[in-house]
């Protein structure tokens, strides 16, 4: 996994409260391989394209956002299905961070697992950022994970919280399974004790 670096990018406002992962990637694309060259088209597919594949009037289709690497969303972003394909669709479009007032729990973990930074700000701050982005399409947000802060189009600084370990993993691009390997001895010891104590379950 690639290490997360400080960066600035055009940010795209997504004014959809409770934007579920079915919107981010419809279920009929879930069996596709990540290597599918069309994968990027599956993100927000049904909001972006009509039945004939013609682009609809949706923020994601606006040329000014073609290179956006940041989304500013609304409450409960990524709720619903556990599909990690939602994050795959985001990374296929170069999205590196989502700023929202709240996240679906499973989607939040899926972001961390794939090097995408979920940033939680208050609903007011997110609404203010989206308003700025709507007023100045193409405006940039700068994100510094190490300092846990971002700079909005208004040049104001917004601090955010993140679990120390999530931050460490993102900054170092670490993979969970490799990390857990270091605990093999502990897992083995726990497992034999646990199974002896709970033989009814095995």
């Amino acid at each position, binding site marked *: 996994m690639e290490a997360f670096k400080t960066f600035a990018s055009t940010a795209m406002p997504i004014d959809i409260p409770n934007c579920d992962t079915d919107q981010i990637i419809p279920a009929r694309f879930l*069996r596709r391989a990540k290597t599918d060259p069309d994968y990027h088209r599956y993100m927000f597919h049904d909001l972006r394209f009509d039945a004939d594949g013609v682009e609809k009037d949706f923020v994601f289709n606006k040329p000014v956002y073609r290179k956006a690497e940041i989304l500013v969303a609304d409450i409960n972003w990524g*709720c619903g299905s556990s599909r990690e394909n939602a994050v795959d669709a985001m990374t296929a479009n170069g999205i590196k961070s989502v700023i929202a007032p709240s996240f679906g729990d499973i989607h939040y973990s899926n972001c961390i697992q794939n090097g995408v930074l979920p940033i939680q700000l208050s609903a007011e701050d997110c609404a203010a950022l989206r308003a700025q982005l709507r007023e100045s399409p193409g405006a940039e947000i700068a994100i510094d994970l190490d300092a846990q802060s971002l700079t909005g189009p208004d040049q104001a600084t917004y601090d955010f919280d993140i679990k120390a370990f999530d931050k460490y993993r993102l900054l170092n691009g670490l993979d969970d399974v490799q990390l857990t390997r270091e605990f093999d001895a502990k897992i083995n010891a726990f497992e034999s004790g646990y199974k002896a104590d709970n033989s009814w379950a095995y």
Partner: protein
Amino acid sequence: MGKTLFEKIWERHVITEREDGDVLLYIDRHMTHDMHFRLFGQLKEQGLSIRNPDQLYATPDHSMPTTARTLADIPPGEMYDAVSVLAQSADELGFHHYPMTDDRHGIVHVVGPEQGITLPGLTLVCGDSHTSTHGALGCLAFGIGSTEVMHVMATQTLWQRKPRAMRITVTGTLGHGVSGKDVILAVIRKISAAGGTGYAIEFAGSAIEAMSMEGRMTVCNMAIEAGARSGLIAPDDKTIDYCKGRPHAPTGAKWDAAVDYWKTLPSDPDAVFDKEVTLDGDAIAPMVTWGNSPQYSLAVDEAAPDPALESDPIVRAEMAAALDYMDMKPGMRLSELSVDTVFIGACTNSRIEDMRAAAAVAKGRHAKARTLVVPGSGLVKKQAEAEGLDKIFMEAGMEWREPGCSMCIAVNGDMLAPGERAASTSNRNFRGRQGPGSRTHLVSPAMAAAAAVTGRFTDVRDLMEPDLIEKE
């Protein structure tokens, strides 16, 4: 201080704790299905193997047409690949697998409890958000993403952050015609689709205690629709009776040891919850959702809300967009809406009790809308047929299908046409969930059957024998 049911199970599974409080949790049971078929190749590429194949249980559920009985009945393509790769991987890697031709196959969240894979006091995960279902047995169960699925396959563990504790108490007695589905829709309406985010929810109270195991599974199934990864219900005599004799349940002295442990699991009287919510069970009516989030539901006799009366501009816009998408108007009665299709099934409502509830309404009546009845497993199908329920459905002009997820997620060919309106016993009314442009209203099995036989949303209590209602 006393402990909650959740804490008791959690603490028993902690291998180690990191400085930031995250723990490495031991996973007793891992379930998987066909949609993760690509992971087996990735596992190989990364040089990983399945650490405990005996703790991994698989069944195909998403990708089978509900007319297919064997793999050969699935046309070549993605659906076939998903089901066949899962079967081949099971052969190769040695994990449990219930293939399409085995009566024990079905929707993973129906199969787990049915086979005794799900038991009180265990940890169970699956790459599917509705894994919360298994919590109805007092099992700590939650959905995970595919990277986490591979992590569990490789290590039998997961790094987890301890959620906060919420207890939702449903008091009183549910009225006749009111089911677990109506309870959970009322709960989500009250606390919102994000109200449970960051929490593990324990459901309690007299209405939950009086509920069947099937009803409890319906309630826990939709904990995720309130944002909570897991929903739990304390194991009681009903739970113990349900588990007894199941193929993977312990027997003899091991059974006795299990029961002794399970009896220690209910939350202590002095356990403290971070949040407590109470609902009056007597006041819950049959529910119908009207919007594109499960939080937007109405009692069947209520009128559609008016966004103009909503003060929050974002919620106002969301409500207006939902009414527009659903082709509804503020103040409209649900009974004014005619339905095109009725779907009775999904991990929410495809167990034997659900089939019986739908059949009781369908009996002697005729469907006015296309109706698909899809049992949750081969065993549910067999049981329903032994009770003659299949004949009741077919005589009512409904279609009796092979088990699977079917029209809940619409990746098996069962779907709505654009603009079609469905009464559905599934758990998600998201835009396009049942096919692009589909309009989904979530209801209980009895309410779905009532919509089928009247062609519109109808209070199922009006179709029930009056003396039955009085007796309750």
